[in-house]
């Protein structure tokens, strides 16, 4: 076996991880943008509670979050039962559940940077857009949103990285089933469970590091290009 040649199980875990992280990002990011915007621009009753709820997955040990997810979204959980009966969607013990766990855990990491960027955008620009006839939604989409891209990108990076590395909530919620929920992080854990697993663990650590590194570089390049495009590059 060549050291640099990925084994099928490793491929499987890698592909699954990327799929789970991407799905988590895709679903959670728009929601995070929405919540961040609301938190940044409006003072509504319940502002504090929404804010606290968003941060909860960060404060609680992942195992607890995973357990709560299991209680709520499991086959017998109230939400899980409803979803599976009404829409036929089931999160229990499959990769969508892993994505859900990753998304929930990544959520606070996305909301905060995005919120900071929204708060830094001068609302006078949006007002100017409205004075030019843009509906508030259009003004948001054409002015505030593009100007908040650094934060959105930053949030996406943090969220994606977290989703890739998520372990505690995932293993608790959807278990550690190869090909279905055994992401790189879980495979890594599995490997550490045997003394002879050190080499495997090392390989998996390397894979995770390389993927993360590639994602980071890509995001940096993308960010730089975008920043140049939106003219915020001060160099």
């Amino acid at each position, binding site marked *: 076996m060549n050291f640099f040649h990925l084994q099928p199980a490793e491929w499987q875990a890698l592909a699954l991880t990327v799929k789970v992280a991407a799905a988590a990002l895709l679903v959670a990011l728009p929601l995070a943008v929405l919540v961040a915007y609301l938190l940044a621009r409006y003072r509504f009753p319940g502002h504090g509670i929404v804010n606290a709820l968003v941060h909860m997955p960060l404060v609680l040990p992942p*195992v607890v979050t995973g*357990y709560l997810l*299991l*209680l709520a979204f*499991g*086959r*017998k*959980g109230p939400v899980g039962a409803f979803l599976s009966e009404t829409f036929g969607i089931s999160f*229990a*013990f499959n990769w969508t559940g892993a994505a859900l766990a990753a998304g929930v855990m990544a959520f606070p990491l996305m909301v905060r940077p995005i919120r900071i960027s929204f708060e830094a955008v001068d609302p006078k620009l949006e007002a100017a857009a409205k004075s030019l006839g843009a509906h508030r939604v259009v003004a948001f989409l054409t002015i505030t949103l593009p100007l908040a891209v650094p934060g959105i990108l930053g949030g996406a990076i943090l969220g994606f990285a977290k989703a890739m590395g998520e372990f505690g909530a995932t*293993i*608790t919620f959807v*278990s*550690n*089933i*190869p*090909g279905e*929920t*055994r992401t790189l992080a879980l495979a890594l*854990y*599995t490997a*550490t*469970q*045997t*003394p*002879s697993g050190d080499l495997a663990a090392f390989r998996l650590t390397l894979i995770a590091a390389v993927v993360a590194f590639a994602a980071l570089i890509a995001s940096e390049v993308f960010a730089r290009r975008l920043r140049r495009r939106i003219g915020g590059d001060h160099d």
Partner: protein
Amino acid sequence: ATDERPLTVFAAASMREAMEAIADAFEEETATKVVFSFAGTGTLARQVEAGAPADLFVSADAAWMDYVRDQDAVSADTIVEFASNGLVLVGLEESPVLELSPENLHAVLETGRLAMADPETVPAGRYGKAALVTLGLWPAVSARLAPMENVRIALASVARGDAPLALVYRTDAMVEPAVAVVAELPQQSHPPIRYLAALTSSRTHPAAPAFLEFLNGPRAREILHSLGFLTDKVN
């Protein structure tokens, strides 16, 4: 009977090596693929309770098996005890044999801690504590404990020299080349360390009973024995 779908087994992470070897043998014989979800026994028990797609549940802890039985998550009449284990104290490779006495332990632990699985959360820790109490050694060590999330880390901390002593299963001691057994704890000093398996209530795979039987059979016993498990009781 062969099936396209693999048989899914939820097994305690500490059983990983043994379970995979047994599964290989089983596949050889029946051409049925087995996949495992490895995690802490408690985590798996809660998942089985929540209706996880497991055909078998392999527990390293009798208490959790009782728990899932009480929840009707496993078929009570299928519970079998297929192996047991013993406890040993390990030190670094060249460590001399240790006479078990409070004074001796005190001396060894003066500058370091006794690494062991968490007595409150991990079965290995619970058994270990029971043994130490029975042997009258508990007062000597209770203040010098380093409770670990799992046995592997306890082993590793001795291997790395962070702790002079670890209390682990004898199976663990056998596979880590960097450590040596310095003392064995008498079997009578703690409740029997039992490994139990059962068919889950939500099983779907037709080969599940066959695998349970295989696990309790001579071929599996051989494998378990070679890895240091005690199988005499079963015999």
